[in-house]
């Protein structure tokens, strides 16, 4: 008996301790797997909350409307001039590309009159605003985060605060206004160049008479899509300005921090553009 108990003793103990150890391992593994998810979720809440708060502060600062004309003008110029070339280039090629894709398809089916309408629809309503928004966020949004981030770490933002000047009113509102307005304008210009690119590709690459393209485009009644594209541009401008200002104003820790913030800003802007695009399209149709 004593021998048996001696035999089973350690074995039983091992069995008894094996299960909790196994459970421990499982729960530890779960914790390791879940913790980043939970942390990511909390971080996302902080970011979305912070951006919402910034938006509220922007609207509060705009009532009554008191613009700093110098700063707003400077932003208009910077935002517009910086992105014009890149918008024109992108639009020309994307318009051409859209037409080549649809053109080959409609030529095979013989429905060539569709080509103007199909290209116009996709360019005006979806591809144009989204692409221009993305280019804009990479060019203007990133630059804005870097600029505000540098101002934050060199205590220029604190300098405004101690002079009794609200950084949101002085720095963020002009950027918000400039980006909303400019992205609408740039979407207009982008639409124009995308259609031009499409027309050129239609005649020269796909070999459909450009008059067929124009006719299809004009008879397509795409005013609604055009306006929706502009509305998207407006909201993209708002989203990019809020995202880029948010990351810029919360930079910590020197040049490295600015780099991280720019990175975050571009990624968050891209996500915001797709979410806003989805929402506007859903509400519109």
């Amino acid at each position: 008996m004593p021998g048996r108990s001696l035999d089973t003793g350690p074995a039983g103990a091992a069995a008894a301790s094996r299960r909790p150890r196994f459970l421990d391992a499982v729960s530890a593994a779960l914790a390791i797997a879940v913790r980043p998810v939970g942390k990511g979720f909390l971080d996302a809440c902080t970011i979305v909350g912070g951006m919402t708060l910034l938006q509220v502060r922007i609207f509060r600062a705009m009532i009554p409307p008191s613009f700093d004309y110098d700063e707003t003008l400077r932003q208009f110029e910077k935002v517009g001039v910086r992105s014009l070339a890149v918008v024109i280039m992108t639009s020309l090629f994307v318009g051409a590309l859209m037409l080549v894709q649809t053109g080959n398809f409609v030529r095979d089916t013989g429905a060539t009159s569709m080509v103007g309408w199909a290209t116009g629809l996709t360019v005006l309503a979806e591809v144009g605003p989204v692409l221009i928004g993305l280019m804009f966020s990479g060019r203007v949004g990133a630059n804005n985060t870097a600029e505000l981030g540098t101002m934050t770490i060199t205590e220029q933002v604190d300098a405004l605060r101690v002079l009794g000047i609200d950084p949101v009113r002085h720095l963020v509102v002009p950027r918000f206004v400039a980006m909303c307005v400019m992205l609408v304008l740039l979407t207009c210009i982008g639409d124009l160049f995308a259609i031009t690119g499409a027309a050129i590709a239609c005649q020269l690459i796909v070999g459909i008479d450009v008059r067929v393209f124009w006719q299809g485009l004009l008879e397509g009644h795409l005013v609604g899509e055009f306006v929706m594209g502009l509305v998207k541009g407006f909201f993209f401008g708002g989203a990019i300005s809020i995202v880029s200002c948010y990351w810029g104003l919360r930079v910590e820790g020197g040049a490295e921090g600015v780099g991280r913030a720019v990175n975050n800003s571009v990624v968050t802007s891209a996500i915001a553009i797709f979410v806003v695009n989805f929402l506007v399209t859903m509400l519109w149709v």
Partner: protein
Amino acid sequence: MIAFQGIHKSFGDKVVLSGIDLQIRDREITFIIGASGTGKSVLMKMAAGLLTPDSGRVIVDGEDVTDFGEDRWQRIRTRYALVFQHPNLFDSMTLRENVALPLRKHRGISRKAAFFAAIEFLAMVGMEDKADLMPDEVGPSQRKRVSIARALTLDPTCAILDEPTTGLDVVASRTIDDLISRLARELGKTVVVVSHDLRSIFGVADRIIFLYKGRVHLDGPSQAFHASRDPVVRQFIGGEPDGPMET
């Protein structure tokens, strides 16, 4: 009047201030001195609402401002000017535009009038002939002088200057000393100066507060400071590398 009551502040594990009690009296020139890294700048930023203490209260003009939000601080800040240790001019504006900005924002005057007035303030620090340069076209000590001018535009009742003469040559330093005296003696302002500059400390201070190890180590007029037998104070004045002072 600014009062600090039992101020504690740590950054992570690093304890910077551990129980600061002091009161800045009106119309006096108070110098705050101490070794680098004792938290003088941190304390000054608390007086401007840029940092909040972990515990303790900050009282400004009899009002407990410790938990004030940004909106309520805006009101106080136009009366209390803070010049940062590191000059932080707006680098997208000329020196003149920098100085004119608070005037345009708070006085509701035209650009032209603000630019005109800005020259007077630049003249106070001897920078009027550089008015149309950008901040990065002048040296750091000149940027510092311009940031002093910018802080004085709103006619504050109290000016807090964080190391105004560090990095300035002797002549420019004495210009700043004269300015400090004039602010207090002629214009009746309260001036708080953080400084290492012994000449300006003993030249213009009404009262000297020596911070050491996160606390007020000595507080009194210049004479008391000179007469002090405290070994740490003696080492600080003498600037000896060896002694009881821990840095």
